[in-house]
Protein backbone atom coordinates (compact mmCIF):
# COMPACT_ATOMS: atom_id res chain seq x y z
CA UNK A 1 0.00 0.00 0.00
CA UNK A 2 2.70 2.46 1.00
CA UNK A 3 6.34 2.17 0.12
CA UNK A 4 9.00 4.78 0.82
CA UNK A 5 12.47 4.24 -0.55
CA UNK A 6 15.90 5.66 -0.16
CA UNK A 7 15.07 8.77 1.86
CA UNK A 8 17.90 11.25 2.43
CA UNK A 9 17.63 14.41 4.46
CA UNK A 10 20.19 16.85 5.84
CA UNK A 11 19.75 19.90 8.04
CA UNK A 12 22.70 22.04 7.02
CA UNK A 13 25.76 19.87 7.55
CA UNK A 14 23.89 17.43 9.71
CA UNK A 15 22.95 14.38 7.63
CA UNK A 16 19.86 13.07 9.44
CA UNK A 17 18.58 10.42 7.06
CA UNK A 18 20.91 8.22 5.04
CA UNK A 19 18.72 6.17 2.78
CA UNK A 20 15.75 4.92 4.77
CA UNK A 21 13.28 2.42 3.28
CA UNK A 22 9.93 1.37 4.68
CA UNK A 23 7.17 -0.77 3.30
CA UNK A 24 3.73 -0.63 4.87
CA UNK A 25 0.88 -3.03 4.22
CA UNK A 26 -2.73 -2.43 5.12
CA UNK A 27 -3.32 -3.14 8.79
CA UNK A 28 0.34 -2.96 9.75
CA UNK A 29 1.26 -1.48 13.09
CA UNK A 30 4.82 -0.37 12.60
CA UNK A 31 6.71 0.92 15.59
CA UNK A 32 9.91 2.84 14.92
CA UNK A 33 12.40 2.74 17.78
CA UNK A 34 15.76 4.40 18.08
CA UNK A 35 17.89 6.71 20.18
CA UNK A 36 17.18 10.44 19.97
CA UNK A 37 18.80 11.97 16.92
CA UNK A 38 18.46 8.76 14.96
CA UNK A 39 16.14 10.47 12.48
CA UNK A 40 12.94 8.60 13.27
CA UNK A 41 10.78 11.69 13.72
CA UNK A 42 12.30 13.34 10.65
CA UNK A 43 11.58 10.22 8.63
CA UNK A 44 7.97 10.16 9.79
CA UNK A 45 7.61 13.83 8.85
CA UNK A 46 8.95 13.28 5.34
CA UNK A 47 6.11 10.83 4.66
CA UNK A 48 3.48 13.58 4.67
CA UNK A 49 5.87 16.33 3.55
CA UNK A 50 6.02 18.25 6.81
CA UNK A 51 9.73 17.85 6.12
CA UNK A 52 10.93 17.99 2.55
CA UNK A 53 13.39 15.15 1.91
CA UNK A 54 16.46 15.83 -0.20
CA UNK A 55 16.01 12.58 -2.07
CA UNK A 56 13.70 9.58 -2.06
CA UNK A 57 10.55 8.17 -3.60
CA UNK A 58 7.12 7.35 -2.30
CA UNK A 59 4.51 4.96 -3.69
CA UNK A 60 1.16 5.36 -2.08
CA UNK A 61 -1.52 3.25 -3.75
CA UNK A 62 -1.54 4.67 -7.27
CA UNK A 63 0.52 7.77 -6.44
CA UNK A 64 4.18 7.67 -7.30
CA UNK A 65 6.45 10.66 -6.76
CA UNK A 66 9.92 11.80 -5.91
CA UNK A 67 9.92 13.24 -2.39
CA UNK A 68 12.09 16.22 -3.26
CA UNK A 69 10.09 17.39 -6.28
CA UNK A 70 6.48 16.49 -5.49
CA UNK A 71 3.92 18.97 -6.78
CA UNK A 72 1.58 20.82 -4.43
CA UNK A 73 -1.25 18.72 -5.78
CA UNK A 74 0.47 15.41 -5.04
CA UNK A 75 1.52 16.60 -1.59
CA UNK A 76 -2.07 17.53 -0.79
CA UNK A 77 -3.31 14.16 -2.08
CA UNK A 78 -0.88 12.28 0.14
CA UNK A 79 -1.71 14.49 3.12
CA UNK A 80 -5.38 13.68 2.67
CA UNK A 81 -4.60 9.94 2.73
CA UNK A 82 -2.61 10.24 5.94
CA UNK A 83 -3.16 11.78 9.35
CA UNK A 84 -0.56 12.94 11.80
CA UNK A 85 -0.59 12.94 15.59
CA UNK A 86 1.98 15.31 17.05
CA UNK A 87 4.13 15.05 20.11
CA UNK A 88 2.78 18.29 21.55
CA UNK A 89 -0.76 17.83 20.18
CA UNK A 90 -0.77 21.04 18.10
CA UNK A 91 -4.48 21.54 18.52
CA UNK A 92 -5.97 24.69 17.05
CA UNK A 93 -6.18 26.94 20.10
CA UNK A 94 -8.99 29.07 18.65
CA UNK A 95 -11.25 26.11 18.00
CA UNK A 96 -13.20 23.81 20.31
CA UNK A 97 -12.47 20.10 20.46
CA UNK A 98 -15.32 19.46 18.02
CA UNK A 99 -14.18 22.22 15.66
CA UNK A 100 -10.64 20.86 15.76
CA UNK A 101 -11.97 17.59 14.41
CA UNK A 102 -14.45 18.99 11.86
CA UNK A 103 -11.91 21.39 10.35
CA UNK A 104 -10.20 18.74 8.23
CA UNK A 105 -13.55 17.34 7.15
CA UNK A 106 -15.43 20.53 6.28
CA UNK A 107 -12.63 22.71 4.95
CA UNK A 108 -10.17 20.26 3.45
CA UNK A 109 -12.50 17.46 2.33
CA UNK A 110 -15.71 19.40 1.68
CA UNK A 111 -17.79 17.05 3.81
CA UNK A 112 -21.26 18.57 4.44
CA UNK A 113 -21.38 20.25 7.82
CA UNK A 114 -23.94 17.98 9.46
CA UNK A 115 -22.18 14.82 8.38
CA UNK A 116 -18.84 16.27 9.51
CA UNK A 117 -20.21 17.06 12.96
CA UNK A 118 -21.60 13.53 13.23
CA UNK A 119 -18.30 11.98 12.21
CA UNK A 120 -16.38 14.28 14.55
CA UNK A 121 -18.63 13.35 17.47
CA UNK A 122 -18.15 9.66 16.66
CA UNK A 123 -14.38 10.16 16.67
CA UNK A 124 -14.45 12.06 19.95
CA UNK A 125 -16.70 9.41 21.49
CA UNK A 126 -14.24 6.77 20.40
CA UNK A 127 -11.39 8.45 22.28
CA UNK A 128 -13.63 8.87 25.32
CA UNK A 129 -14.31 12.60 25.08
CA UNK A 130 -18.05 12.65 24.55
CA UNK A 131 -18.33 15.13 27.42
CA UNK A 132 -15.84 17.59 26.02
CA UNK A 133 -17.13 18.61 22.55
CA UNK A 134 -17.27 22.33 23.30
CA UNK A 135 -14.12 22.67 25.36
CA UNK A 136 -11.21 24.71 24.07
CA UNK A 137 -7.79 23.03 24.09
CA UNK A 138 -6.63 25.24 26.98
CA UNK A 139 -9.44 23.79 29.10
CA UNK A 140 -8.30 20.21 28.56
CA UNK A 141 -5.56 18.17 30.22
CA UNK A 142 -2.58 16.99 28.19
CA UNK A 143 -3.99 13.50 27.85
CA UNK A 144 -7.36 14.85 26.74
CA UNK A 145 -5.68 17.19 24.26
CA UNK A 146 -3.75 14.33 22.75
CA UNK A 147 -6.93 12.28 22.50
CA UNK A 148 -8.54 15.19 20.61
CA UNK A 149 -5.44 15.08 18.41
CA UNK A 150 -6.09 11.40 17.76
CA UNK A 151 -9.80 12.04 17.12
CA UNK A 152 -8.82 14.75 14.63
CA UNK A 153 -6.61 12.19 12.90
CA UNK A 154 -9.06 9.27 12.77
CA UNK A 155 -12.11 11.35 11.80
CA UNK A 156 -10.80 11.76 8.25
CA UNK A 157 -10.55 7.98 7.76
CA UNK A 158 -6.90 8.08 6.74
CA UNK A 159 -5.21 5.15 5.05
CA UNK A 160 -2.25 5.53 7.39
CA UNK A 161 -2.05 7.11 10.84
CA UNK A 162 1.32 8.64 11.70
CA UNK A 163 2.15 9.05 15.38
CA UNK A 164 5.14 11.15 16.39
CA UNK A 165 5.99 10.31 20.01
CA UNK A 166 2.36 10.83 21.04
CA UNK A 167 3.00 10.28 24.74
CA UNK A 168 6.38 11.97 25.20
CA UNK A 169 4.96 15.30 26.36
CA UNK A 170 2.50 13.76 28.81
CA UNK A 171 2.65 13.32 32.56
CA UNK A 172 3.24 9.66 33.41
CA UNK A 173 -0.25 9.15 34.79
CA UNK A 174 -1.81 10.47 31.56
CA UNK A 175 0.16 8.21 29.20
CA UNK A 176 -2.08 5.22 29.85
CA UNK A 177 -5.27 6.83 28.53
CA UNK A 178 -3.59 7.76 25.24
CA UNK A 179 -1.93 4.38 24.80
CA UNK A 180 -5.18 2.53 25.42
CA UNK A 181 -6.87 4.59 22.69
CA UNK A 182 -4.03 3.70 20.33
CA UNK A 183 -4.28 0.03 21.21
CA UNK A 184 -8.01 0.12 20.53
CA UNK A 185 -7.37 1.60 17.09
CA UNK A 186 -4.75 -1.04 16.39
CA UNK A 187 -7.18 -3.81 17.27
CA UNK A 188 -9.77 -2.33 14.94
CA UNK A 189 -7.38 -2.74 12.06
CA UNK A 190 -6.02 0.77 11.55
CA UNK A 191 -2.72 1.07 9.69
CA UNK A 192 -0.28 2.91 11.91
CA UNK A 193 3.32 4.05 11.92
CA UNK A 194 4.32 4.97 15.45
CA UNK A 195 7.49 6.63 16.65
CA UNK A 196 7.60 6.03 20.38
CA UNK A 197 9.63 5.17 23.42
CA UNK A 198 6.82 3.14 24.93
CA UNK A 199 8.31 -0.33 24.77
CA UNK A 200 5.20 -1.92 26.21
CA UNK A 201 3.19 -0.59 23.31
CA UNK A 202 5.74 -1.94 20.83
CA UNK A 203 5.78 -5.34 22.50
CA UNK A 204 2.02 -5.58 22.75
CA UNK A 205 0.67 -4.32 19.46
CA UNK A 206 3.43 -3.85 16.89
CA UNK A 207 3.21 -6.11 13.89
CA UNK A 208 6.65 -4.91 12.92
CA UNK A 209 9.37 -3.07 14.83
CA UNK A 210 11.90 -0.94 13.00
CA UNK A 211 15.08 0.04 14.80
CA UNK A 212 16.76 3.18 13.46
CA UNK A 213 20.13 4.64 14.32
CA UNK A 214 22.35 7.17 12.56
CA UNK A 215 19.79 7.86 9.88
CA UNK A 216 19.45 4.28 8.67
CA UNK A 217 17.24 1.32 9.47
CA UNK A 218 19.54 -0.94 11.45
CA UNK A 219 17.16 -3.80 11.99
CA UNK A 220 13.58 -4.71 11.28
CA UNK A 221 11.45 -7.60 12.48
CA UNK A 222 8.55 -8.69 14.60
CA UNK A 223 8.37 -7.34 18.13
CA UNK A 224 9.35 -10.74 19.43
CA UNK A 225 12.42 -10.94 17.20
CA UNK A 226 13.64 -7.48 18.06
CA UNK A 227 13.01 -7.70 21.79
CA UNK A 228 14.16 -11.23 22.42
CA UNK A 229 16.77 -11.92 19.76
CA UNK A 230 18.12 -8.76 18.16
CA UNK A 231 20.62 -9.53 15.40
CA UNK A 232 22.50 -6.26 15.56
CA UNK A 233 24.73 -5.16 18.39
CA UNK A 234 23.40 -1.59 18.28
CA UNK A 235 19.82 -2.78 18.73
CA UNK A 236 20.80 -4.84 21.70
CA UNK A 237 22.68 -1.96 23.31
CA UNK A 238 19.73 0.37 22.82
CA UNK A 239 17.23 -2.07 24.27
CA UNK A 240 19.47 -2.80 27.21
CA UNK A 241 19.45 0.91 28.07
CA UNK A 242 15.75 1.48 27.51
CA UNK A 243 14.04 -1.67 28.72
CA UNK A 244 14.86 -2.08 32.37
CA UNK A 245 13.74 -5.66 32.51
CA UNK A 246 15.42 -6.49 29.22
CA UNK A 247 17.51 -9.25 30.76
CA UNK A 248 14.41 -10.97 32.05
CA UNK A 249 12.75 -10.75 28.66
CA UNK A 250 15.50 -12.96 27.28
Amino acid at each position, binding site marked *: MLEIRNVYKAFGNNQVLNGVDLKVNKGDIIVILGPSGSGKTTFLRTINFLEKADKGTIDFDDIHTELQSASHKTINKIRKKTAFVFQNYNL*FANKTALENVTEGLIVARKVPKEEAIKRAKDALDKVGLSERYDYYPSQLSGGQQQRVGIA*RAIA*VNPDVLLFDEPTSALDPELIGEVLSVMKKLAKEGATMIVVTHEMSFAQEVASRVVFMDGGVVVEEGTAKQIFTAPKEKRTEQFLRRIVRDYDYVI
Partner: protein
Amino acid sequence: MTINTAFMIQTFLDVLAGIPVTLELTFITLLVSFPIAFFMALQKLEKKKFSGKIVSGYVSFIRGTPVVLQILFLYSLLPTILNYFIKEVLNLDVDIFALNPIIYAFVVFSLNTIAVLTEVFRSALLTVEHGQLEAALAIGLNKRQAYARIIIPQAVVFALPNLCNATINLMKSTSLAFMMTVKDITAIAKVNAAYGYNYIEAYLVISVLYIILCTVVQFGYGAVERYFSLYKRISTN
Protein backbone atom coordinates in the same frame (compact mmCIF):
# COMPACT_ATOMS: atom_id res chain seq x y z
CA MET B 1 0.19 86.19 32.29
CA THR B 2 -3.50 85.43 32.15
CA ILE B 3 -5.20 82.65 30.29
CA ASN B 4 -7.48 83.95 27.59
CA THR B 5 -10.53 81.70 28.05
CA ALA B 6 -12.57 83.34 25.33
CA PHE B 7 -9.77 82.57 22.90
CA MET B 8 -9.65 79.00 24.13
CA ILE B 9 -13.34 78.44 23.54
CA GLN B 10 -13.12 80.01 20.10
CA THR B 11 -10.07 77.89 19.24
CA PHE B 12 -11.79 74.78 20.49
CA LEU B 13 -14.70 75.42 18.14
CA ASP B 14 -12.30 76.19 15.29
CA VAL B 15 -10.16 73.07 15.70
CA LEU B 16 -13.25 70.85 15.65
CA ALA B 17 -13.15 71.44 11.90
CA GLY B 18 -9.73 69.77 11.89
CA ILE B 19 -10.94 66.55 13.50
CA PRO B 20 -12.17 64.98 10.25
CA VAL B 21 -8.77 65.72 8.69
CA THR B 22 -6.90 64.10 11.59
CA LEU B 23 -9.20 61.08 11.54
CA GLU B 24 -8.96 60.82 7.78
CA LEU B 25 -5.16 60.93 7.95
CA THR B 26 -5.16 58.24 10.63
CA PHE B 27 -7.68 55.81 9.27
CA ILE B 28 -7.02 56.02 5.55
CA THR B 29 -3.32 55.57 6.31
CA LEU B 30 -4.15 52.50 8.40
CA LEU B 31 -6.42 51.13 5.70
CA VAL B 32 -3.72 51.50 3.06
CA SER B 33 -0.97 50.13 5.32
CA PHE B 34 -2.81 47.10 6.65
CA PRO B 35 -2.74 44.75 3.65
CA ILE B 36 0.70 45.89 2.50
CA ALA B 37 2.22 45.46 5.96
CA PHE B 38 0.61 42.07 6.34
CA PHE B 39 2.02 40.89 3.05
CA MET B 40 5.44 42.27 4.01
CA ALA B 41 5.32 40.53 7.39
CA LEU B 42 4.76 37.22 5.62
CA GLN B 43 7.75 37.92 3.38
CA LYS B 44 9.89 38.75 6.36
CA LEU B 45 8.94 35.52 8.11
CA GLU B 46 10.36 33.48 5.24
CA LYS B 47 13.95 34.33 5.98
CA LYS B 48 15.49 32.59 3.01
CA LYS B 49 13.54 34.64 0.54
CA PHE B 50 15.18 37.63 -1.13
CA SER B 51 11.96 39.64 -0.75
CA GLY B 52 12.23 39.17 3.01
CA LYS B 53 15.62 40.86 3.00
CA ILE B 54 14.23 43.80 1.05
CA VAL B 55 11.43 44.15 3.58
CA SER B 56 13.92 44.01 6.46
CA GLY B 57 15.99 46.74 4.81
CA TYR B 58 12.92 48.90 4.29
CA VAL B 59 11.77 48.50 7.89
CA SER B 60 15.25 49.32 9.23
CA PHE B 61 15.48 52.40 7.03
CA ILE B 62 12.09 53.78 8.04
CA ARG B 63 12.59 53.03 11.72
CA GLY B 64 16.05 54.51 11.64
CA THR B 65 14.99 57.96 10.41
CA PRO B 66 12.84 60.53 12.23
CA VAL B 67 9.37 61.15 10.84
CA VAL B 68 10.13 64.86 10.68
CA LEU B 69 13.08 64.18 8.43
CA GLN B 70 10.98 61.96 6.20
CA ILE B 71 8.41 64.71 5.89
CA LEU B 72 11.04 67.32 5.07
CA PHE B 73 12.62 65.11 2.43
CA LEU B 74 9.45 63.93 0.86
CA TYR B 75 7.66 67.25 0.89
CA SER B 76 10.54 69.07 -0.73
CA LEU B 77 11.74 66.30 -3.03
CA LEU B 78 8.66 64.44 -4.23
CA PRO B 79 6.84 67.35 -5.90
CA THR B 80 9.99 68.34 -7.81
CA ILE B 81 10.67 64.80 -8.94
CA LEU B 82 7.03 64.18 -9.88
CA ASN B 83 6.92 67.47 -11.73
CA TYR B 84 9.99 66.57 -13.76
CA PHE B 85 8.63 63.09 -14.45
CA ILE B 86 5.22 64.29 -15.61
CA LYS B 87 6.42 67.26 -17.62
CA GLU B 88 9.56 65.86 -19.21
CA VAL B 89 9.00 62.13 -19.43
CA LEU B 90 5.26 61.77 -19.85
CA ASN B 91 4.71 65.17 -21.48
CA LEU B 92 1.46 65.70 -19.60
CA ASP B 93 0.04 69.06 -18.70
CA VAL B 94 -0.64 68.47 -15.03
CA ASP B 95 0.26 70.99 -12.37
CA ILE B 96 1.74 68.85 -9.65
CA PHE B 97 2.08 71.81 -7.30
CA ALA B 98 -1.69 72.29 -7.32
CA LEU B 99 -2.08 68.85 -5.76
CA ASN B 100 -3.75 68.75 -2.35
CA PRO B 101 -0.87 68.51 0.14
CA ILE B 102 -2.80 65.87 2.09
CA ILE B 103 -1.69 63.40 -0.59
CA TYR B 104 1.93 63.84 0.54
CA ALA B 105 0.84 63.39 4.13
CA PHE B 106 -0.82 60.11 3.22
CA VAL B 107 2.36 58.97 1.49
CA VAL B 108 4.69 59.80 4.40
CA PHE B 109 2.45 58.39 7.11
CA SER B 110 1.71 55.27 5.09
CA LEU B 111 5.40 54.60 4.45
CA ASN B 112 5.92 54.87 8.19
CA THR B 113 2.91 52.90 9.30
CA ILE B 114 3.69 50.09 6.88
CA ALA B 115 7.07 49.65 8.58
CA VAL B 116 5.54 49.75 12.06
CA LEU B 117 2.70 47.37 11.21
CA THR B 118 5.03 44.94 9.44
CA GLU B 119 6.75 44.40 12.77
CA VAL B 120 3.44 44.27 14.65
CA PHE B 121 2.11 41.58 12.32
CA ARG B 122 5.35 39.66 12.21
CA SER B 123 5.61 39.40 15.98
CA ALA B 124 1.93 38.49 16.24
CA LEU B 125 2.25 35.73 13.64
CA LEU B 126 5.28 34.40 15.51
CA THR B 127 3.27 33.98 18.71
CA VAL B 128 1.14 31.25 17.11
CA GLU B 129 3.17 28.06 17.42
CA HIS B 130 4.47 26.73 14.13
CA GLY B 131 3.02 23.34 15.11
CA GLN B 132 -0.51 24.58 14.50
CA LEU B 133 0.38 25.47 10.93
CA GLU B 134 1.86 22.00 10.50
CA ALA B 135 -1.24 20.42 12.00
CA ALA B 136 -3.45 22.39 9.62
CA LEU B 137 -1.38 21.31 6.63
CA ALA B 138 -1.36 17.72 7.88
CA ILE B 139 -5.16 17.53 7.95
CA GLY B 140 -5.24 18.70 4.35
CA LEU B 141 -5.74 22.45 4.52
CA ASN B 142 -3.69 24.46 2.06
CA LYS B 143 -1.45 27.24 3.28
CA ARG B 144 -3.96 29.98 2.54
CA GLN B 145 -6.74 28.19 4.44
CA ALA B 146 -4.38 27.43 7.32
CA TYR B 147 -3.49 31.10 7.67
CA ALA B 148 -7.03 32.37 7.20
CA ARG B 149 -8.71 29.94 9.58
CA ILE B 150 -6.10 29.05 12.19
CA ILE B 151 -3.09 31.37 12.31
CA ILE B 152 -4.54 34.81 11.60
CA PRO B 153 -7.54 34.63 13.98
CA GLN B 154 -5.10 33.88 16.81
CA ALA B 155 -2.47 36.35 15.66
CA VAL B 156 -5.07 39.14 15.59
CA VAL B 157 -5.65 38.73 19.30
CA PHE B 158 -1.95 39.07 20.01
CA ALA B 159 -1.59 41.97 17.57
CA LEU B 160 -4.41 44.10 18.99
CA PRO B 161 -2.54 45.77 21.88
CA ASN B 162 0.31 46.68 19.55
CA LEU B 163 -2.11 47.79 16.86
CA CYS B 164 -3.76 50.07 19.37
CA ASN B 165 -0.37 51.50 20.20
CA ALA B 166 0.47 51.99 16.53
CA THR B 167 -2.86 53.67 15.84
CA ILE B 168 -2.42 56.09 18.72
CA ASN B 169 1.14 56.87 17.71
CA LEU B 170 0.00 57.47 14.16
CA MET B 171 -2.84 59.73 15.27
CA LYS B 172 -0.41 61.81 17.29
CA SER B 173 2.16 61.99 14.53
CA THR B 174 -0.46 63.26 12.09
CA SER B 175 -0.03 66.51 14.00
CA LEU B 176 3.14 66.89 11.93
CA ALA B 177 0.98 67.24 8.83
CA PHE B 178 0.95 71.01 9.44
CA MET B 179 4.50 70.97 8.07
CA MET B 180 2.96 69.98 4.74
CA THR B 181 0.34 72.74 5.04
CA VAL B 182 -2.42 70.26 5.76
CA LYS B 183 -5.10 71.91 7.86
CA ASP B 184 -5.47 69.40 10.65
CA ILE B 185 -6.15 70.10 14.34
CA THR B 186 -2.60 71.30 15.05
CA ALA B 187 -2.41 73.50 11.97
CA ILE B 188 -5.66 75.29 12.80
CA ALA B 189 -4.55 75.83 16.40
CA LYS B 190 -1.22 77.26 15.30
CA VAL B 191 -2.84 79.68 12.89
CA ASN B 192 -5.29 80.84 15.55
CA ALA B 193 -2.50 81.26 18.09
CA ALA B 194 -0.34 83.25 15.72
CA TYR B 195 -2.77 86.21 15.61
CA GLY B 196 -2.33 87.16 19.24
CA TYR B 197 0.55 84.96 20.43
CA ASN B 198 -1.89 82.75 22.39
CA TYR B 199 0.25 79.68 21.85
CA ILE B 200 -0.09 78.23 25.34
CA GLU B 201 -3.88 78.40 25.23
CA ALA B 202 -4.00 76.88 21.75
CA TYR B 203 -1.69 74.04 22.70
CA LEU B 204 -3.69 73.33 25.85
CA VAL B 205 -6.87 73.08 23.84
CA ILE B 206 -5.49 70.64 21.32
CA SER B 207 -3.75 68.59 24.02
CA VAL B 208 -7.14 67.93 25.55
CA LEU B 209 -8.55 67.15 22.13
CA TYR B 210 -5.80 64.64 21.34
CA ILE B 211 -6.27 62.98 24.73
CA ILE B 212 -9.99 62.61 24.03
CA LEU B 213 -9.39 61.19 20.56
CA CYS B 214 -6.75 58.73 21.76
CA THR B 215 -8.93 57.59 24.64
CA VAL B 216 -11.76 56.86 22.26
CA VAL B 217 -9.37 54.79 20.13
CA GLN B 218 -8.24 52.88 23.21
CA PHE B 219 -11.80 52.07 24.22
CA GLY B 220 -12.52 50.95 20.68
CA TYR B 221 -9.59 48.56 20.65
CA GLY B 222 -10.47 47.32 24.13
CA ALA B 223 -13.92 46.30 22.88
CA VAL B 224 -12.51 44.58 19.81
CA GLU B 225 -9.96 42.78 21.96
CA ARG B 226 -12.63 41.42 24.28
CA TYR B 227 -14.61 40.20 21.30
CA PHE B 228 -11.70 38.44 19.60
CA SER B 229 -10.17 36.82 22.68
CA LEU B 230 -13.31 34.87 23.48
CA TYR B 231 -11.50 31.55 23.33
CA LYS B 232 -8.84 32.82 25.70
CA ARG B 233 -11.26 34.37 28.16
CA ILE B 234 -13.20 31.14 28.60
CA SER B 235 -10.06 29.31 29.59
CA THR B 236 -9.20 31.78 32.33
CA ASN B 237 -12.61 31.49 34.01
